């Protein structure tokens, strides 16, 4: 039993950890820029319902396909809906799904990867070949298949993406954990007679938290791309909820006449993904990981 006094110590420790990560991010210019972009996006995602000038479904029949003006800062779409409102609201669902999906991915994928590295032997061998087989199928294809079969819905999207990206995380987490499994402090814990759960929880996982954090950031970025692609194809966030991917699809036929309906959502999505990637790269560099070899599936 841990005494209660240990709890504030733990909290203080995690605070220190975050402070350390914050500092290392701020040290790189790219990281700072990325972080700023992400913070702006997160603020908009949270606050947009209170700051948008119209409801996302309000139709201004007189102003269809309008160019940006004082009344409609980003213009309107073919129905006369305000694009500024829709762009500001359009990230909420996708970001929410991406963050939750990435959390699920890192949770199960990370845990399984670490356990496999720790257990080793035949279990590891067999399961990793299975992971290899699953990884051979492009992620988006798998997600598309499941979504088509089970239908679109937030829970289906979150779970499907959480599963698909978790498979990649198994690999990454296992690789990172392998570097520690053979180290002397784990050997020391074994020789001391520590229980295996304690070795994994107390000795191994604290060393992998930063890898998992970077992994979370990157999976969230991929998941966001994936959701937007699905929405574009009509399998992601279902109307009437505004969504960037969907908006690009809806407005692309008008691209030649009125590019605003395509441009603004694309800019919003691109800036967020670039922001996450800049922050993620700076983060991984700060904690000594090289992500340059890793490409999205």
């Amino acid at each position: 039993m841990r005494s209660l006094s240990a709890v504030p110590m733990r909290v203080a420790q995690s605070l220190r950890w975050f402070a350390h990560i914050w500092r290392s991010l701020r040290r790189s210019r790219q990281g700072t820029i990325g972080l700023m972009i992400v913070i702006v996006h997160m603020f908009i995602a949270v606050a947009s319902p209170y700051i948008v000038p119209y409801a996302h479904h309000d139709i201004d029949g007189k102003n269809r396909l309008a160019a940006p003006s004082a009344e409609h800062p980003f213009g309107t779409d073919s129905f006369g809906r305000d694009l500024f409102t829709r762009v500001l609201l359009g990230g909420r669902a996708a970001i929410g799904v991406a963050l939750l999906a990435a959390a699920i991915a890192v949770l199960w994928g990370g845990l399984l990867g670490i356990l496999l590295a720790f257990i080793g032997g035949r279990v590891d061998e067999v399961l990793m070949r299975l992971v290899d087989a699953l990884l051979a199928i492009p992620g988006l294809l798998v997600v598309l298949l499941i979504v088509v079969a089970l239908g679109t819905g937030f829970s289906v999207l979150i779970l499907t993406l959480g599963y698909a990206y978790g498979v990649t995380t198994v690999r990454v987490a296992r690789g990172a954990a392998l570097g520690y499994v053979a180290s002397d402090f784990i050997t020391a814990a074994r020789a001391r007679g520590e229980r295996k759960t304690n070795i994994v929880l107390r000795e191994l996982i604290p060393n992998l938290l930063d890898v998992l954090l970077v992994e979370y950031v990157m999976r969230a970025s991929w998941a966001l791309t994936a959701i937007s692609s699905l929405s574009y194809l009509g399998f992601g966030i279902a109307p009437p909820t505004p969504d960037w991917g969907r908006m690009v699809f809806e407005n692309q036929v008008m691209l030649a006449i009125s590019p605003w309906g395509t441009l603004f959502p694309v800019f919003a999505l691109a800036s967020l993904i670039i922001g996450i990637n800049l922050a993620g790269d700076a983060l991984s560099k700060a904690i000594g990981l090289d992500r340059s070899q890793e490409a999205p599936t």
Partner: protein
Amino acid sequence: MSQKLLEVEGLTTGFRTQAGQVLQVLRNVSLEMQRGETLGLVGESGCGKTTFGMTLLGHLRPGGQVMAGSVRFEGVDLFGLGPDELAKIRGQRVAVIPQSASSALTPTMRVGEQIAEVLTLHLGLAGAELQERVLELLTRVHLPQVVELVRRFPHELSGGQLQRVAIAMGLAGKPELLVLDEPTTGLDVTTQAHILDLLREIQESTGTAMLYISHDMGAIARVCDRLAVMYAGEIVEDGAIDDVFADPVHPYTRGLLGSVPRLSYAGLPQAMAGRPPAPGEDAVGCAFVPRCAFADETCKTIDPALEATSRAGAIPHLVQCHHWQRVLASGASGQMRDLKARMEQDAEAEPLLELTEVDITYAKRGLAALVARWRNEPEPPTTVSGFTITIHRGETLALVGESGSGKSTIARTIAGLLPPRAGQIDFGGQDLASAVEGRPAEMHRKIQIIFQNPDASLNPRHTVKQILDAPLRLYFEMDGKGRLDRSGALLEEVRLTPRYLERHPGQMSGGEKQRVAVARAFAAEPDLVLCDEVTSALDVSVQAAVLELLAGLQANRGAAYLFISHDLAVVRAIADRVAVLYQGRICEVGPVAEIYAPPYHPYTETLLAAVPEPAPGARAQLLAKDVPEAEPPTRGCCFQRRCPRRIGSICDDEAPPSQFVAEGHIIRCHIPLADLGESQVDLISPAEIATQGAVVDGK
């Protein structure tokens, strides 16, 4: 052209921190080297030795800058040269031989090609001439079968062979100055002896000047004519090696020399308190003040300058100390103390751990073993074979041997991490389960391990508090308050303060980390502590302190040690009994005094002969070749292939008998004891060293 090969004048270098501060690394270093001179550079880690060595190639680490002074090689200021001109000097006129040859060589390139590359680059050689020169260079460094060797990849060579290849590469451009950065650190003692011999020979035949950077006083004594001592980025003493070793005048040099354990002396070396200041930490005055017994107000306020001592000689003797005359007059330099109350060899001492005919193998198990058998793969010879030994309560049994001799394997087996293939292990009269999981908690508590490298054995994410909590939580019923008090007390016991509780390993020095590792082991109140090369990753000064700590803890707590080491001088300082191991087989076992006196087992003799003693003139003998052996022979004596005293086919065919020399002293060899007694190896007696003045017994 000036006679001086190298002139470093007032060199001050620094680097810029993230906060924008410029911290000094080298401070006002002035030093000259004549042609053909061999200069040793010693100092603890972090004193700027390597940084200095690299400036001789006009190189600074990224972010580094020259703040003042110059490095002139034959009159040319290296830091005033452009990249192209520097490239012409590097490798061709000044070459560096790095510490770790295995990481300095490209793993995917054949050895021959790598040397050829240097020759083409610097001398423009090609074709047959090039090939010939490559072979010549490899022969020059005494590598065998050079024709085949050029086609090998670095991973196919042993550590000693790689170091020879690195030396050959260094020599390829026929440089006038070789910078050797810890070239023998990490090599076995016999291999080191051969490399040192080779360096000396190269120096004598080619007249190449050498800067030999090392923390190993013995190696320096073997190779160098002159010695410079570096502390906190400054040269504090500089003089002929005989002068400096015989009577060092800087307190730091005295401290360093005193902390080196000696083969010829059965006592603990004197530890030096404190650690060198990190860049930017030092204030005004002499940097050594906090660790100096001679320091006074003058030292705290006025920077001492390098001045000549009164000693006359071909090489001027310089020292940077306000009180060198007082230091010199104080007489005794490094004092050695026999702190450790040696266990009397007592037949009635209660046995604690008994290993009987233990065989250990890394052979495949389970399914993989069946597959191997089905494929008719030959079974690999056992790593450790017929290992029988007893450790008594409260004694220190040392296990010595070169790398690969199975020392750590035995420790792992005792700890239950690697089950033996055969044999019996008893602990305190009880049968000890082979796997750690099968042992009761009480057994876990009684057997503790301390590892070689505290960086690896302490979890970098844990605070010292968490590290010490682990054994307390496991073995004792204690509440949080109790554990906190106990942790604090343990830290006091290893001479740290409870202030360290909140620190992470990354915030401590190597010696401090190893103390925490020692505290963790003793938190369990163990009966037996397995010390696996616990001091070999540490500076000599820190090593002396840790040895003293271990000896003190043993005296207070009565724990037994299985002390694994490759360093025979360290073993002599701390062990009660010694077992000499070769290829997982015991060659000789006996009380420490017996082991270090004839008759020797030929392997023990080889090892002892190879140890470089930190005394000029003490030249080691090379008895056996440093041919690495991957596997022990299947029958006969394990040392048959390298034995300098082989007597014939009996050595190949029959297992050597155990010959009883004295109470508890056994030598396994076919050679009669009377013959073994006539050894060529004669350890310099303490009296002899005392007359040289390097060590004065604390009488």
